[in-house]
């Protein structure tokens, strides 16, 4: 379902269109275990802000999308802002974001935030292509800055397309459906 967000987004024309096929894989299916492990490893990279290593886990045709959620009447037929997103990224724009964090002048992360990406509700689906898996997960990011400021939270569901490459599984498409219309975080100088 969330794959349609990618196909409808303003900047998603380059994204893979592969979708899930069938119901969830069993929790002891090796494909599910590989996908789950990939997500846990990724959460660790994001907590550590090791964004150089994280960028290596993305395919060159990555589409990284986080629509803006809006409150609409039941039955309105949409719950994201038409033509607007928080992130609608390709490899180039993600690489610029990462490059900025690596300068000595990205003040918003100096001093760095303390981050914890909590991961749960992982469900894996096969696709029509043996080299691709679709993985759904929930993430809850806790971010704390400085000593006395209260921490802030972002809760979101994600749908990922993982591709099996010569260098292992890589992320080819991610749709992040955040659970707030108005974000309660001072900026999104983080990745979900």
């Amino acid at each position, binding site marked *: 379902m969330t794959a349609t967000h990618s196909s409808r987004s303003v900047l998603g024309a380059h994204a893979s269109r592969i979708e899930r096929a069938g119901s969830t894989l069993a929790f002891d299916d090796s494909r599910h275990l590989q996908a789950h492990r990939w997500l846990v490893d990724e959460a660790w990279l994001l907590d550590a802000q090791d964004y150089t290593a994280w960028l290596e886990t993305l395919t060159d045709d990555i589409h990284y999308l986080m629509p803006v959620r809006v409150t609409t*009447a039941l039955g309105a037929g949409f719950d994201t802002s038409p*033509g*607007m997103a928080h992130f*609608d990224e390709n490899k180039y724009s993600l690489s610029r974001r990462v490059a*900025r964090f690596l300068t000595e002048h*990205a003040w918003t992360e100096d001093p760095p935030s303390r981050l914890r990406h909590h991961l749960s509700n992982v469900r894996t689906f096969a696709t029509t292509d043996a080299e691709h898996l679709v993985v759904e997960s929930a993430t809850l990011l806790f971010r704390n800055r400085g000593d006395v400021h209260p921490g802030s939270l972002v809760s979101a569901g994600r749908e990922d397309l993982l591709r099996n490459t010569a260098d292992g599984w890589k992320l080819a498409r991610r749709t992040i459906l955040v659970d707030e219309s108005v*974000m309660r*975080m001072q900026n999104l100088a983080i990745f979900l």
Partner: protein
Amino acid sequence: MTRDITEGAPDAMTDLAGTFTDVRRGMIPAHIYNDRELFEREKKEIFGRSWIFVAHESEVATPGDYVVRRVLRDSFIITRDEQGDIRAHFNMCLHRGMQVCRAEIGNASHFRCPYHGWSYRNDGRLVGLPFHQDAYGGEAGFQRKGQRLLPAPSLDSYNGMIFISLDPDAPPLAEYLGDFAFYLDYYTKQSPSGIDLRGPQRWRIKANWKIGAENFAGDMYHTPQTHTSVVEIGLFREPKAEKRKDGATYWAGNGGGTTYKLPPGDFDERTRYVGYPQEMVERMKKTLTEAQQRVIGEDGFMISAATVFPNLSFVHNWPRVADSDDVLPFISVRQWQPISENETEVLSWFAVDAEAPEEFKALSYKAYLMCFGSTGMFEQDDVENWVSLTNTAAGAMARRLRLNSRMGILADGTEVTPALSAEQFHGPGTAHTGYSEYNQRELLTRWADHLDRPATPAEPLEVGTLASGGQAQV
């Protein structure tokens, strides 16, 4: 100096008259960025009386389209009714005060209150009142005819930008904007069709609303420091952020802004330099006045950030959006919506000329996402500063400190760099090149002038009674 400004606030900690005097001479008492008492005054005297932006007509393009927007705590439904007219109504049922629309965007012919079922057409008219005869005795008890949701006390628009004012006696919007309208056109009238406005992204920051407004109005001085990182990663063609001091700031009417100085060239060359394709340049030449074109073509200044008092800002910039030498311009409209003295909801929209080629629209949107908004690489560092400033402004020492906001003038008031002549700058208002805080002082002087005036209590509004004939039925 009138003394009634402190009346009714016996526990006031602030010497208001002294605060306003300091602000007017460019010495800013630091606590104004986190002061509950001042915020209470701002609510009444600024947000209760100024023109506040709520939406652009392109956000409600077809009949029935609506968006719900706030002026501080007051929720308004902005609709295009079945006749195509733009309406703004207070989102509160006339009966028990329930919000009649609890979505923030959609399309509807009617709004029905979920509490007791009163319903209103999208032009605000009350059309459904269950058991009108049984419960009220019909028109004799509750005059349904002619009733509508409370309209915004004043509603006006400029280039499709819809503003409302809670003051029924507000001056016309054009008069309020004054000469700033000249500059507003650059952002909102690049072709006869005007802009499409998309978004907004919304997020809350623990910062006072005035800081963003001041920053966008005139702070060219922060660019080389705050935004070093975006230059370092090659997002801009100009290798050094200190290029900003070659630009001009201007103040005109009720707003002001910043510009960049462009390399030599005529209007076409300079407009193409920032990334506009020739077909858009041709349309600009048809919609912009000769004076508007001369600011770019002869004077060499391209608009960048700006603010209209009190809390509406704009930004125009032209980053690289791919690994190439090409740059792409984008426009953002943003509002600093106060939540409290130390919290602001930022509403950040992407604007693009409605007649622009589709490819331009997509790349301009990409440029916006990379630079501004909730994920923008400029905005990330700005907000970090503003949150820190607001937090520090809460304490006792901040009540003693007068922040020096006199950049650009000597102790005796002499200008460090003389104002540009009419031949050097063809736009209205007063313009200066170089780093200065003229515009921040203009903005905060307006702030002081608004707070420093006698309150005008609003009249109560009764509905359903026969009060218009004189006597309410009790």
